[in-house]
């Protein structure tokens, strides 16, 4: 099981700013280890963000996203206290869901 995500969500005017750090190796499948064997790819493929019970963002990612990915999003019309639920799934089927509450 992967480490928890770090989610920060805060209102700025009428817009919620959400930042999330995911703990993931994001192996490209191009890299070789000390013995010359190719390290198999292992990366996050799919990300969803729900705010206040509504799906606001659905994303797909490839191998050229950095290790331990950080994403920032802005959601208009969200309110302080709304719940933010973020989920990712990687190419090996590992997944993780974490939630946070939007701060005022």
């Amino acid at each position: 099981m992967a480490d928890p995500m770090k989610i920060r969500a805060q209102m700025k005017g009428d817009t919620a700013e959400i930042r999330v750090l995911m703990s993931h190796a994001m192996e490209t499948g191009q890299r070789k280890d000390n013995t010359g064997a190719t390290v198999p790819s292992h990366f996050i493929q799919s990300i969803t963000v729900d705010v206040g019970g509504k799906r606001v963002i659905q994303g797909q990612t490839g191998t050229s996203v950095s290790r331990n990915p950080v994403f920032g999003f802005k959601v208009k019309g969200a309110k302080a206290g709304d719940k933010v639920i973020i989920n990712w799934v990687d190419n090996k089927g590992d997944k993780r869901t974490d939630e946070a509450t939007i701060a005022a």
Partner: protein
Amino acid sequence: MDALRRTLLKGAGATGAIAAAIAAGVLKPSQVLAAEWNRAAFDAKDVAGAVKGLGGAGAADHAGIVIKAPDIAENGAVVPVDVSSSIPNTVSLAVLVDKNPLPLSAAFDFANGALPEMALRLKLGQTSLVEVVARTADGKFYKAKKEVKVTVGGCGG
């Protein structure tokens, strides 16, 4: 539902029909967002192929797409990039790195108040053009590019 997903992935031509389906209440926006991983686009070895996989072949340049990235990145493994679109009704943004072995790095769909704007960190194997492709609700595609020089590569070896 499955047939619908296929047309969703094909993008461009089908979006009008999808908008109609949303209006008719057949499809909820959350379902529209639940597409499968777009293997055709992510496995493409060049930008043209990836953009085609997104359904955006022939996208026109547009100044409404803003790419904030360093001109020179000291570490190609972590290049912070901010992208946003001021094109009305932008529903999707994709980010590509032209010199990477698999150029498409991320494609995000926005709905229910999410602004067409995102910050992420990319790996750049070498000096590359970062290209952003935006899709609007009526199925039109637009693009913009910015060059980022890399002094140390991000893909190791």
